[in-house]
């Protein structure tokens, strides 16, 4: 069975890029366009891993991840954001993120991080 990845990003452009990359590499994808949708869709889709942006309308990625981890303490998430700042990375790790990748990320680096989290 293909691992299911939830892509959470407010940019349709980024979501489409990631859907293409992941579907070409054997992953099933579901998407959410902000933190509010992410929490709702996580409960419905129960993905194996979440790729979470930080800057989003309505609810940012850090808040959304905290809520998802309350719903499911075993939830696995990789932050995928252009914000490469120690305070944000530290907070993400405290909330339970398994990795913190900076956009634009190389395809190989992202796929390696997914394999590691899913292994």
């Amino acid at each position: 069975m293909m691992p299911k990845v939830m892509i959470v990003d407010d940019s349709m452009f980024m979501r489409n890029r990631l859907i293409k990359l992941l579907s070409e590499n054997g992953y099933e994808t579901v998407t959410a366009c902000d933190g509010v949708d992410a929490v709702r869709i996580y409960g419905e889709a129960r993905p194996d891993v979440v790729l979470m942006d930080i800057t989003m309308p309505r609810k940012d990625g850090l808040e959304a991840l905290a809520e998802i981890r309350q719903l499911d303490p075993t939830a696995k998430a990789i932050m995928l954001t252009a914000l490469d700042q120690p305070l944000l990375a530290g907070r993400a790790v405290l909330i339970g993120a398994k990795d913190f990748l900076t956009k634009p990320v190389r395809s190989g680096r992202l796929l390696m991080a997914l394999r590691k989290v899913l292994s």
Partner: protein
Amino acid sequence: MNEQEIWDSVTGGSHARLWLDMAMKRVTQALSDTVGEPFHHGALRAEAVPVAGIAERIGDPKAKTVGVQLQIKGDARGQALLLFPWESALRLVELLMEVPPRTTSDVGFAERTALAEVGNLSVAHFLNALVAYLAQPRRLQPSPSSVLVDTLEAILRLALMPVAIRGDDPLVIETILANAGGTIQIHFLLLPEQTGRQGPDMAATRGPGARAFRRA
């Protein structure tokens, strides 16, 4: 270090030129990696500019333009504005969306989200460089991007309205990002929120003798 001191340290400190150059290198690298072809940045300026004069510095005020606007929040506030001349916006969209050159003639929803992401990446990498430069635990984040399509003067009028109402000459950090062939040009403007009096170095940048940082 308060909000005003954060902005002063990067625009008026002794290492300001070096820092701004380094920050813009990070921006151009992120842009190059996203678009898939090399970008560079032009002359860097950090100076106080009358609001009324900004449009004419950039280009034809009546020219059709795409603007991507982001608020800066966290430990220091301000706003960033990326301005794409119409033809540059179309060429950039074609590269981002991997469609043949000269086949895009309008900017719809999909194209706007691609340009918004360019704004998000560019400003985020600039703020990352600022946080690294401060060498103190700080958090600086852009808001989600707003994309505007209008004449240059209309976009600037909207974006600069809060500054114009206050009657300040805003501090503007400005450069041009361009690809190798020069077919894509992006004006990058950053306007720190001025919460206190201007620092001495910044005041010295006002007027015709204003400091202009030129790329080596």
